[in-house]
């Protein structure tokens, strides 16, 4: 039964933003392995106590998938209850057009890495009848500010729809689309939301909605103001 026992949970991009907020929420009850681009030394002290960390740079999708599998084995896990493929970058388009470099980087990190990681993690997830969670974005329906980012998230949406059917009865697959959160993704992307930022949800609240959506295994789920105002951060299943 979900919520009754400690789960082995992998969170990519778990050293910052929503990934870290989710990790902090789950750290007390579950066993966590987080991944990120930064080195062990750089993240030391910032992660929740007890969580493992593996370096997996998503800008090389194939290597990142191998790094995760190796990291899980070295951590002593022989199965995986949850994989939350959350790592992602955004690069604001300059004058309306993404550069070739930005397009390639965004697709590699946000989409291709998740696809190859899902493939590599399949045996571990299958063994534990686990859940694969892909973190999309409300931008998956299109955005003129961040076209390549929107495209990468739309790709995750279509990927989840297909894979959820393919892996039915073996591994649950879902895609979650969080709304904008008060993380540093906008600053990193070179985009200033200005006063709009006041309307962004707190990372903790999004993380709470992510946790209950993961427990429910439903797909797709949009985690934004509508859900929040319906009590999404306080009610729902517990992971």
């Amino acid at each position: 039964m979900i919520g009754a026992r400690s789960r082995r949970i992998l969170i990519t991009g778990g050293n910052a933003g929503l990934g870290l907020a989710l990790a902090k929420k789950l750290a007390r009850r579950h066993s966590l392995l987080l991944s990120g681009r930064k080195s062990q030394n750089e993240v030391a002290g910032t992660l929740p106590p007890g969580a493992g960390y593996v370096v997996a740079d998503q800008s090389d999708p194939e290597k990142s998938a191998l790094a995760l599998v190796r990291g899980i084995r070295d951590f002593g896990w022989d199965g995986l209850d949850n994989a939350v493929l959350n790592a992602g970058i955004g690069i604001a388009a300059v004058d309306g057009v993404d550069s070739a470099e930005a397009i390639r980087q965004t697709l590699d990190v946000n989409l291709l890495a998740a696809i190859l990681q899902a493939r590599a993690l399949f045996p571990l997830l299958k063994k534990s009848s686990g859940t694969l969670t892909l973190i999309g974005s409300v931008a998956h329906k299109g955005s003129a500010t961040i076209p390549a980012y929107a495209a990468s998230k739309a790709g995750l949406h279509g990927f989840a729809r297909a894979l959820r059917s393919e892996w039915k009865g073996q591994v649950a697959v879902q895609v979650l689309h969080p709304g904008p959160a008060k993380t540093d993704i906008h600053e990193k992307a070179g985009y200033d939301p200005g006063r709009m930022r006041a309307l962004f949800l707190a990372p903790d609240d999004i993380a709470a909605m992510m946790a209950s959506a993961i427990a429910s295994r439903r797909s797709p789920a949009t985690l934004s103001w509508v859900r929040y105002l319906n009590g999404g951060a306080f009610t729902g299943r517990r992971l």
Partner: protein
Amino acid sequence: MKSGPRRALVTGGSAGLGAALVDWLLANGYEVVVLDRDRPWTGKTSVDFIRCDLASRTELDGVLPDLVSGGPYDLVFLNAGINATGKFEALDPRTHVEVLRVNTEAPMVIAAALFEAKACRAGAAMVFVASLSHFTGYPGAASYAASKDALAIYARSMRKYAASRGVSLTVAFPGPLKTDHAERYSPEGADGSKRMDPDRAASLILTDALAGKKTSIPGAGNRAFAVVGRMFPKPVTAMMRRLLYDRLKS
């Protein structure tokens, strides 16, 4: 006001839907630039041919200047695509990489380069060829579904910018076509008789593109499928699973 003959670019113009598009354009007096991995097998000599395997970033970067100087264009068809059907986890990782590179990354990079170099004339039309799979789940071709959904949304995201440059963006969602490509990737025993003739699909898509329509779903049956797929995602995805995934051998 027209200066010289109209020019068109077609990626993947050597076979399938692309070849049908090239035929239509040549018959209607366009000068055509074709980008493909292989020479046109129909032996078309009247096109400017640029050889490039879009799965390779270095090859694409190498021909981008030629693509730009081949303009300015009145019509751009980002049509090249490959498929990979099979159980997702059983397919080689390289296959998934190539599907994403050819179907998503390359057309995005080409479109961005053409916009930056102002290689489209005002009043031009640019067409992104996605897939009818956009309106359903597509078990048995998960990375392909991802690649085409990403492309469709990129086009949608770029529409406003393109309009500011006087370029209309059309996303085409063709259904199954009678092409070698479709036959190679459909399961054994699949009924090919209901597939659309590529010449017909090409002329329907061209009509929509020249009219500046946002989306083009060629064929009434395909349009009905798109509506039903949107309204009932679960049963339609289950049906797609029976049509493709359940018939896969491995």
